[in-house]
C-alpha cells in the first residue's frame, strides 16, 4: 500500500482572463518510510505540488490518495481531519502561533485529537529536540533555529505517517540549518515517517532517496539518489 499517490495532477489559475497552468499532469507514488524531494526554480510549481499532496488545496484535475484516502472528494474540514491524523508540517517561516508558548504550540495537534496526556507528550518531544527548558517561552523569545525545532516537535506530535517540509532551512544560517536537517532525518528515521521535502538546496535534496525536478509545472526528471542506491544495495 502506498502512503501517497499523485495521479495526473494539474493545477490551473485564472489570471487576467487567461488560464495559467502551474502544474501539468504530475504523477508519482511513495511508499511508507520513503524520503523524497521536490526541487526546481522559483515559480516552477513545487510548493503548489506540496499543497495538493498535503490536502491544503484541490487540484484542477487528477487525484491525490493519502494513506489510500482520496483527498479530492473531501470537504475542507474532512481534509483538516486527515491532516490532523496523518500529516505533519514544517514551514520555511516556522509558522508557530505567536500567542502560544513553545509547549502549547506542540500540544495543539494532540489536543485537537483529544489526547489526554498532551502536555507530557509535548514536553518529551521538546526534550527530544533539545528545548526541554524552553517550553514556556514564546516564539518571539526563541531564535530561528529554536523556532524551527519547536515546529519539528509539533510536526511529530501526532506521530504522522507523512511529513511535508517546505524549505525547512530557507530562513536559517548554515550551521543552524545543518543541525535542523540532521534532526529532521533522525526523527524521520526513528518514527519511520515518509518525508516530502520541497527545497532549492540540491545538497539537502541529495540526502533524500528520490528527487523529482519540476520546471514550468512539468516533471523534468525523477531520479533515485546514490544514498538510495546504497541503501537499496545494502538491502
Amino acid at each position, binding site marked *: 500500500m502506498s502512503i501517497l499517490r499523485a495521479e495526473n495532477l494539474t493545477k490551473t489559475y485564472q489570471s487576467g482572463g487567461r488560464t495559467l497552468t502551474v502544474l501539468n499532469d504530475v504523477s508519482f507514488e511513495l511508499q511508507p518510510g520513503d524520503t523524497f524531494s521536490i526541487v526546481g526554480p522559483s515559480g516552477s510549481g513545487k510548493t503548489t505540488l506540496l499543497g495538493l499532496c498535503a490536502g491544503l488545496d484541490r487540484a484542477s484535475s487528477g487525484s491525490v490518495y493519502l*494513506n489510500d484516502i482520496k483527498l479530492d472528494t*473531501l470537504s475542507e474540514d474532512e481534509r483538516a481531519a486527515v491532516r490532523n491524523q496523518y500529516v505533519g508540517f514544517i514551514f520555511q517561516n516556522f509558522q508557530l502561533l505567536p500567542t*502560544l508558548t513553545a509547549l502549547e504550540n506542540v500540544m495543539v495537534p494532540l489536543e485537537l485529537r483529544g489526547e489526554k496526556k498532551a502536555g507530557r507528550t509535548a514536553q518529551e518531544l521538546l526534550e527530544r529536540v533539545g528545548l526541554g527548558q524552553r517550553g514556556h517561552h514564546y516564539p518571539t523569545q526563541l531564535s530561528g533555529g529554536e523556532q524551527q525545532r519547536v515546529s519539528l516537535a509539533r510536526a511529530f506530535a501526532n506521530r504522522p505517517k507523512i511529513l511535508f517540509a517546505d524549505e525547512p532551512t530557507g530562513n536559517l544560517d548554515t550551521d543552524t540549518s545543518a543541525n535542523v536537517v540532521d534532526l529532521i532525518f533522525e526523527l524521520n528515521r526513528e518514527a519511520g515517517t515518509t518525508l516530502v521535502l520541497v527545497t532549492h538546496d540540491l545538497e539537502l535534496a541529495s540526502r533524500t532517496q528520490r528527487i523529482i525536478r519540476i520546471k514550468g509545472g512539468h516533471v523534468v526528471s525523477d531520479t533515485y539518489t546514490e544514498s538510495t542506491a546504497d541503501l537499496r544495495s545494502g538491502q
Partner: protein
Amino acid sequence: MDRILPKVPARSVSITDPWLWKMAWRDSRRSRRRLFLFMSAIVLGIAALVAINSFGDNLSASVDEQARELLGADLVLTYNKTLNKKTEAFLNTISPERSNEVAFPSMVFFPRSGGVRLSQVKALEGRFPYYGEWEVQPSAAVARFRKAGKTGERIALVDDALLVQLNARPGDSVKVGSLMFLVAGRVMKTPGQTAVTTTVAPTVFLPYAQLPETGLLQRGSRVTYRSYFQFDPGTNVDAYIKTFASRLDKAGINYDTVTERKEQTGRAFTDLTRFLNLVAFVALLLGCVGVASAVHLYVKEKIASVAVLRCIGASGRQAFLIYLIQTSLMGLMGAVLGAALGSIVQLILPEVFGSFLPIDVTVTVSWKAVAQGVGTGLVIAVLFALLPLLVIRKVSPLRTLRTSYEEDVTGRDPLRWAVYGAIVLAITGFAYWQIRDWKMALGFTLGLATAFGVLTGLGRLLMFLVRRFFPVSWSYIWRQSLANLYRPQNQTLILVISIGLGAFLIATLYLTQTLLLSRVQLSASGGQPNMVLFDIQNEQKAGVQQLVQSHRLPVVQSVPVVTMRLAEVNGRTVEAIQKDTSSKIPDWALTREYRVTYRDALIDSEKLATGKAQSLRNQTALISVEKGYLDRMRLKLGDTLTFNVQGALIPTVVGGTREVDWNRVQTNFLIVFPNGVLEQAPQFHVLMTRVRDTQQSAAFQRDLVRRYPNVSAIDLGLILRTIDDILEKVSFVIRFMALFSIVTGLLVLSSSVVISKYQRIQESVLLRTLGASRRQILLISLIEYMLLGLLAAFSGIVLSVFGTWGLAYFVFEIPFVPDFTPLLVVAAVVTALTILIGLFNSRGVLVRPPLEVLRAEV
C-alpha cells in the same frame, strides 16, 4: 481503492468544548488590552441604556410610593365657573376635609425692585397640600399663611423662580390687583409641580379670604377653581367617586384621583425613558460599528494563525468558535463594565432631569435594568462582531505556504446575509420593545439606516474627491496625510460615521433650538405688535388706550372678545353629537370655550378663502370661520351653529371661511361675528401695541399695573425668555444623552488608532529609515487626524443642516437660514478632540527609535 474517511478526530465541535475556551484564552494573551479597548466602545452605550432604564424603574417605583404627593390630596375637582348653591352644598358633603383654590393669570408688581410680570395667582384656603411637603423658606411662613384668612394678615407666598426673575425677596411687598401683600415666604416646591411648570407660570399664593378685595375677579376673567379633598385613611376613593361621578359631569366638574394622576405621570415618564433609551441605543450601535471595524482589523491580523490551525487539523468551525468566544467574553466584560458605569451614572440623572420631575426619585440599583442592558449590549455587540468573524470559517490553510494567497473570503456568504438580517431584526425588535409600535420601530430602523447611509455616502464621496483631485503639487507631508485617508485599512469611513453622528446630534439640537426661537422672533419683526394687553373691561377701554398713547406707544389693534360655548350644530345639541359614536367632530371642538370677536371687515392677517366675510342679513348673523376649523368640524357653508353666550342662545349661519396667518402676534380668531350682534354681551378687550425696548416695556407695565391692576400685559420678550428657558432645560437632557454618542465616537477613534498602530509603526520606521524627521512624521499624523476630524464634523453638520431644513420647511413652515458661526465652533471642537486623541494614542510610534521598533513585538 477509494476509501472515504478513516476514523479521524475525536473532538466534538461544540461551543462547550473546553479546548476551544482554553485556546481562546491562550490566543488572547498578547492582545487582551487591545481586545478590551475595542470592546470598550460599547461600554458607554450600555452605560447609557442601564442608566436610563434604572432611572425609569426607580422613577416608577417612586411615583408609586409618592403618588398622593403628586396630587397633594385624595381627590381634586376642577371647574371654571362659580358653582350654584346646590352644587356647592353637595361638594361640602363629599368630605369634611376640603381646601379651595381660585387660580387666574394676573400682573403682579414688586415696588421695591420695580419688577412686573404676568403670573399665576392662586388664592388658597384650607390645609392643602394634605400630602407631600410644601417647601417654603422660612418654613414657619406656611402656618402663618394658613392663619392669614382668620388674622386678616395680608401676606403672600411667591415661587422662587418669580422672585429671582424680578429681583425680589421675602420681606418685599407685592401688588396683586389693587392690594399690596407682604412676601412672607419663598416657595421652593409645591407638591405635583415641576420646575418647568413654575418657569412657564410662576405663582403668587394669596389667602383666599382676601381675594375679593383685590378686585381681580370680574366677569370675563379666565379663572380656574379647584377643590381638594382628603378622606379617611383606607377609603377607596375610586369606588367612592363612582357613586357621584355623573353628577359632577353634569355640573361640568372634572375630577382627578391619585390613581389617575399616577397613571398619567407613569405614562408620561415611560414615554420619556423609552425615547431616551432609543437615544442611548444609538450610542450603543455606534459603539458596535466601532467593534465591527476593530474586529475586522483584528481578524486580518489573526488570519496567519488561523491558517496554521487549519493546517494542523482544526476545522473552520473550531477556528471560528475560538475567536467568537474571545470576542464574546470581551463583549461581556464591556457590557458588565457598562452596566456598572450605568448604575453610577443614574445617580446623577435625578439632577439632569430635575426640572421635569414632580417627585423626589429614590435611587437604587435596578438589577432588571442591569440584566436588560448587559443582555442587549452583548447580543448587539456579538452580532456586529460576527460580520468580520465569519471570514475565519473560510480561511484557507494554503496561506501557510503562500503569505500572499488571497482567497475570496468576503464573497457571497449566505450566513453574512443572515447576520445582517439578525442585526436589522434586533434593532427593530429593540425599538419595538421601547415604543410598542411596529410602524415607529421600523421608522426608527429606517431613519437610523438613512443617517448611517448618508454619512457613509458622504465619507465615501469625500474619499473619492480627495483621490480624484489629489493635489500632486503639494508638499510631501500633505500628500502623505491625504493619501492616508484612502489607503488600505483606512479608518476614514468608520470615524466619519461615529464622530459624524455625534456631531450631527449636537448640531441638530442647536439648530432646532435657534429655529424655534427665530420663529418667535420673526413674528416680532417689521413693525408688528410685540405686546398684548388683555382683560380690559368695557369701562377701562378708553383709559387704557389713553395710557398707551401717553407712553407714546401705538395702538396697533384693539378688539372686543366675547366668550361663549357651542350649543347646537345644525340643530343637534352638543350632548347629542357627543353621544353619537359615528360623529367625527372632535370632542374638544364641542366642549371648549370659544373666544370670539365681532367686526365687519377682515384684517391684514386674514384672507377670504370661500363664501363671504361675516355680515348681518335679515337679523341672522352670518359668521366667518377659519378654513381648517370648517374641515375639522365637518361643516360646509350654510350650516348653522348656535352659541350659548352667558345663557343666551344665539343662532348663526356659516357664511364664509378665512385663511389666517397664525404666526403673528395678533388676535386671531376661529370664529368672527358681524357687528350688531354681540355688542351688549359681557366682554373684555384686547389691545396690541409695540414697545421699543425692555426699559420702555417695564415702565409701561409698571404704570399699567398701578392704574389698571386687573389688566394683564404679555410681551414677546417674556415669551422668548420662557421658551428659551424650557428649551435650555430640554436640550440639556438631550445634550447629556448626545455626550454618550460623542464619547463613544472618540473611543472608537482611540481603538482604531491603537489597532492600526502596527501598520503606522512600520510606516513610520520606514520613513525614518529613509530620513524623515520626527517632526515630519508628527506633522503627517497631525494633518491626517485634522482631516479626519474635519471630514467627520463636516459630514455630521451637513446632515444636520439638511435635517433641520427639512424640519423648518415641512414641520414649522418657516424659512431656515443656518447661523454658521456656532457650527464652525462645533467643527473646531470635534476636530481638536480628534487630533488630541489620535496623537495621544500614537505617541509610542514617534518616541521609539527605529531599531527598537523593528525588533519589538507590537
